[in-house]
């Protein structure tokens, strides 16, 4: 366990982000000239994120301090075990910061957010990033809950930031769903604390399986508490049956925020779910000899597998009739929560590495798809499938980029999505047993289903004539350039995935 001074240094990225967020709030109140705000707000946000990324690299160096790198027994924890600074936390913190950078870049030329409110808007994005950084390193259920709320509150506000009435409605819906989910989770936590008197993640396994053995009543209550806590995670990662807010929120939110919501809170939710599941299912004293889930806890694995199968199937089937691209991508992101959950079921070091790898790949391809939607929306004022008709003629660059992202989301080679899916399925099937095989079959069937609705968009872009009344050409702008860069990255990671795979393996290093 790190001492207080090292703890403060490990917290540095979050402190930097928080300070810049405060600066942005103050600046939004005190800067009167609109021209100043136009460059000051996004500039400050980008500088803050860059500084946070640099300080994050510094924390990596700190982890190799001589006083021990034993993350397994809660070694890499700061502030009396409240926050963990292991490779998993660093990896996902970097991912959410990069997603925030993309959201800032997407916003700059976007008409969605009123200029007068941009100071608060960027400030909230940074505040949300602080919350996500704390969430991915949360090592204590109370810290986990506080961080989850910090992320959620900022998301609700950002969802309602558009001037349209639909946006406010989406924000309110999201807030209501989120309020219920977080209340259920908190209720579960209260049961857990009442049963065991501990909220430390490292004690999860011993609470369930330690001696003395639980009475039937106690273990029943513990199961209920765990399921309630799982509901909170399910809401954050938008897994079925906690997904209903997702399409409405993405449709109403400003497109850059929809892009951010579809990747960053989801991935931070996955990071903390991985930490939770690992701490619950593994015996940390001897991880080599024990199976991922001992027989008494196998039901938890089945519950996560059920969430996974439901999310994939319902997400993909519901995406088929969607004509609004943001709703389609929302359902696709629900399905991807299902794919990522396969890695959680796979468990062990390979499963965690696969989730990290697929998370990074998903970040690139989904942000890219949303960037294309943002560019088209900016030019045509619509995110309907009709606005994509004949996009290949109106803007070949955007159409080709979108095609790359959609193929990657399906999981076809030679894109990064294929590599990610291979790792996920491999980690799932490595363990053996009936559950992984059933889940893998469901996953493969769903990949085929997803090809259908992604191909609908491809058909609209490349085979159908342009709709009359839409602009003849769409000039590439900031969003288009971002999409192009991400498309190149998607293809590059599909061929040259070694470094990313190594990073993902490293992020799973807390399982040793």
């Amino acid at each position: 366990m790190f001492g207080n001074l090292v703890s403060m240094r490990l917290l540095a990225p979050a402190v930097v982000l928080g300070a810049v967020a405060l600066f942005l709030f103050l600046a939004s109140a005190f800067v009167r000239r609109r021209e100043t705000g136009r460059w000051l707000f996004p500039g400050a946000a980008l500088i803050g994120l860059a500084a946070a990324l640099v300080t994050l690299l510094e924390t990596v160096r700190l982890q190799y301090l001589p006083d021990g790198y034993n993350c397994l027994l809660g070694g890499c924890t700061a502030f009396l075990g409240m926050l963990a600074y292991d490779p998993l936390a660093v990896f996902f913190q970097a991912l959410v910061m990069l997603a925030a950078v993309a959201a800032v870049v997407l916003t700059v030329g976007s008409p969605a957010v009123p200029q007068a409110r941009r100071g608060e808007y960027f400030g909230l994005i940074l505040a949300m990033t602080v919350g996500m950084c704390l969430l991915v390193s949360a090592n204590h259920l109370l810290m986990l809950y506080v961080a989850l709320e910090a992320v959620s509150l900022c998301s609700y506000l950002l969802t309602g930031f558009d001037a349209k009435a639909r946006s406010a409605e989406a924000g309110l819906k999201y807030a209501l769903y989120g309020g219920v989910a977080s209340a259920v989770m908190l209720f579960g936590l209260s049961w857990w604390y009442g049963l065991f008197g501990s909220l430390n993640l490292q004690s999860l396994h011993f609470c369930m399986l330690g001696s003395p053995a639980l009475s039937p009543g106690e273990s029943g209550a513990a199961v209920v508490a765990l399921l309630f806590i799982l509901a909170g995670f399910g809401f954050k990662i938008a897994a079925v049956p906690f997904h209903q807010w997702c399409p409405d929120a993405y449709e109403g939110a400003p497109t850059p925020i929809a892009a951010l919501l579809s990747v960053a809170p989801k991935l931070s939710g996955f990071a903390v779910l991985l930490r939770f599941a690992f701490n619950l299912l593994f015996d940390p004293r001897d991880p080599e000899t024990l199976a991922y889930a001992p027989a008494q806890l196998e039901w938890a694995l089945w519950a996560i597998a059920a969430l996974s199968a439901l999310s994939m199937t319902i997400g993909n089937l519901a995406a088929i009739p969607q004509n609004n691209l943001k709703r389609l991508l929302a359902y696709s992101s629900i399905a991807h929560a299902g794919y990522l959950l396969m890695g959680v079921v796979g468990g062990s070091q390979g499963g965690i590495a696969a989730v990290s790898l697929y998370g990074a790949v998903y970040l690139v391809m989904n942000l890219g798809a949303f960037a294309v939607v943002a560019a088209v929306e900016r030019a045509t004022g619509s995110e309907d499938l009709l606005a994509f008709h004949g996009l290949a003629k109106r803007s070949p660059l955007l159409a080709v980029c979108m095609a790359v992202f959609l193929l990657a989301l399906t999981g076809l080679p030679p894109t990064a999505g294929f590599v990610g899916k291979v790792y996920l399925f491999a980690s799932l099937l490595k363990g053996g047993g009936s559950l992984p095989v059933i889940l893998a079959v469901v996953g493969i069937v769903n990949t085929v289903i997803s090809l259908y609705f992604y191909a609908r968009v491809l058909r609209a872009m490349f085979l159908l004539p342009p709709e009359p009344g839409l602009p003849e050409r769409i000039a590439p702008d900031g969003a288009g350039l971002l999409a192009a860069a991400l498309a190149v990255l998607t293809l590059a990671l599909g061929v040259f995935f070694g470094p990313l795979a190594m990073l993902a393996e490293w992020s799973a290093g807390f399982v040793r």
Partner: protein
Amino acid sequence: MGFELAMVLGFFVVSGLALWALLFVGRFLRLRAPRPEKLTTYECGELPVGPAWFNFNNRFYLVALVFVALDVGVAAAIPLVVILREAAAGSGGWLVFLLLFGFLLLLAVALAYVWKKGDLRWLRDLPAPECAPVDTGRPEPKP
């Protein structure tokens, strides 16, 4: 576990019986004096003014939020001082002072923001709403 649940069932049965028995016995013991005032909302002649379903002025909501910023200051400062009392009395006094001062400074940022945005004034001009007001189907509240 079975026995514990039997206890719960027992509680349900006993409480149901007790409720019924009390009401039943009360029937014979109490006076009967029906009056129309007893059927009004507060059952004592005090008449309610207006319907309960009306829109609160959302300035109250803003003031409540500003109050939270100040309230957190007190709620966190007092425990901090109690916990660090010994350190504050000894050589660490300045550190405790700086800790508390830094925290209050953060809260002052919130106050400065609200002040500058004009949300501390009770009467203020607002831009016209950008979307049409929603028809709630209920009568307009009286001012």
